[in-house]
């Protein structure tokens, strides 16, 4: 188990992060520059928080009140860097040997061989990092991090250095390679799709602040805050006025919508995903008219920019190309949204 609660003043913002994870992969999702990497560095001991407490299993890694600040060497926290940080002056084998120096001499060679096999690095042992492809470098870096037998593993945007095809290959591999690992894994990313596919739970970071830890399913269905909805890819937001426990009036869209999500007193915004909006058929709740302002052909879908009647901001809607083609360019469409897809959010945009 990894429990983190840290506070650190930085030049541009204040880092205020707290979360807990019980094994498995926890995603730390946030835009670039929101403090994700700094959070990882604090956990690994490469940076020191101003206040807070970091506990890994039974061991207190950092506690500002008890003046505990373990060195990175003693924390046993593995770190996979964005650019992998393989030692350029050492071969693949030497890089791995560097990681097993903690083991007794007699066990080192066997540990290295085991990692070379498990990470399919046979044949690459005598090569230097610059002679490897991006994907191979990542495998070596991961093998090296795990060879040191860490109690937790931190992955800092592990796919950012790769192009899109290789990225997918590597993602499949990473999932496989991490499966036997028993410790806690933190996966930092700005890509909600990566996080959705690789993680069970996710904690959203915005401007240095962490939100609640959610399941990835909840992040998409009911993110709860505007910042979580934004990073989860939601495109449509409106200020709301609470009507009752199941209805909100959306000021920017000029409509009152029924929702199956809780409308609390702090609810300030409603969100609708572009692909949750659909062309309404009769008899369903949450129908409203909108004028078609622009039609944009996207790679695999058609994007409509729509002006709801009585509203003052545009809605973005995505629908399959053939569905739009069959509609023969209407000027006004009747929109619908299912009550479970009207997300009630707190916080500010």
């Amino acid at each position, binding site marked *: 188990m990894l429990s983190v609660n840290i506070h650190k003043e930085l030049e541009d913002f204040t880092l205020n992060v707290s979360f807990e994870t019980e094994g498995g992969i926890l995603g730390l999702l946030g835009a670039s520059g929101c403090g994700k990497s700094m959070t990882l560095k604090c956990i690994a001991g*490469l940076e020191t928080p101003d206040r807070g407490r970091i506990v890994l299993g039974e061991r207190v890694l950092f506690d500002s009140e008890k003046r505990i600040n373990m060195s*990175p*060497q003693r924390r*046993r926290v*593995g770190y996979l860097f964005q650019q992998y*940080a393989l*030692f350029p002056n050492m071969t693949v084998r030497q890089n791995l040997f*560097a990681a097993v120096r903690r083991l007794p001499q007699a066990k080192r060679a066997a540990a290295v061989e085991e990692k070379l096999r498990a990470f399919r690095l046979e044949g690459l042992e005598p090569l230097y990092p610059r002679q490897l492809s991006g994907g191979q470098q990542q495998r070596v870096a991961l093998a090296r991090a795990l060879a040191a037998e860490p109690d937790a593993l931190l992955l800092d945007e592990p796919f950012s250095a790769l192009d899109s095809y290789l990225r997918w290959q590597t993602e499949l591999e990473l999932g496989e390679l991490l499966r036997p690992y028993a410790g806690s894994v933190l996966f930092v990313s700005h890509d909600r799709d990566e996080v959705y596919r690789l993680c069970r739970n996710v904690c959203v970071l915005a401007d240095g602040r962490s939100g609640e830890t959610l399941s990835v399913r909840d992040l998409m269905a009911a993110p709860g805050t505007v910042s979580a909805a934004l990073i989860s890819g939601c495109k449509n937001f409106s200020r709301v006025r609470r009507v009752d426990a199941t209805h909100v009036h959306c000021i920017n869209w000029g409509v009152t919508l029924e929702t199956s999500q809780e409308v609390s007193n702090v609810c300030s915004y409603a969100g609708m995903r572009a692909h949750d909006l659909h062309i309404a058929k009769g008899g369903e709740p949450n129908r409203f008219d909108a004028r078609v302002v622009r039609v944009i052909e996207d790679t695999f879908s058609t994007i409509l920019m729509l002006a709801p009647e009585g509203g003052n901001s545009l809605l973005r809607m995505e629908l399959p190309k053939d569905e739009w083609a069959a509609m023969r360019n209407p000027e006004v469409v009747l929109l619908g949204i299912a009550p479970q897809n009207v997300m009630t959010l707190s916080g500010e945009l």
Partner: protein
Amino acid sequence: MDWFPLLNSLRIAAISSAVVFFLGIAAAYYIARLPRAVKGALDVLLTLPLVLPPTVVGYLLLLVLGPRRVVGAWALETFALRLTMQWWSAVFAVSIVTFPLMYRTARGAFESFDETLADAGRTLGLPNRWIFWHVRMPCCRQGILAGAVLSFARALGEYGATSMVAGYTPGRTATIATEVYQLWRTGNDALALRWVLVNIAISAVVLLAVNLLERREGRR
């Protein structure tokens, strides 16, 4: 031809280069992590010998090491040892003059070192000392070697500070540089020219070594 000046120049250059090698690297490593203001001040102080005339460095050294000055008098009293006008007195002078070359090139090399490599090492549980010798130094090797060769070459050619601190005593403190001056002053042009050729030959060999070194690095 008496080869003493060559031997003397080489041993002075070798000893001072060794001294400067370690001091320069240590200074570069520790000063790089100091706060900016302190770093700037120390930087000026440590680079000063590069731009000062060597005679000024020699003069300042005599102010400290001279037999009637603080350190000089103390050494004379406790060890009955004169710190100036010995062949090894030149080591003080040459070390100070060549120090900035080693310090600056080593610092440049350390500053371009990717710190995440050291961070990676620390998270793998590797001791800082191990990281320094097995990762940082090898990665900065080219810059550090260049600094070492440059300071050795400069050490061989040092004249001003050496002549003030060690003087010119044939067979005792003469170096190639002071020998050439003396020979020219006393009208022995032919011998002076010979020493000049020797000096050019040595310098050419050193610079050739630098080029070969760089070409090998480039191919790696």
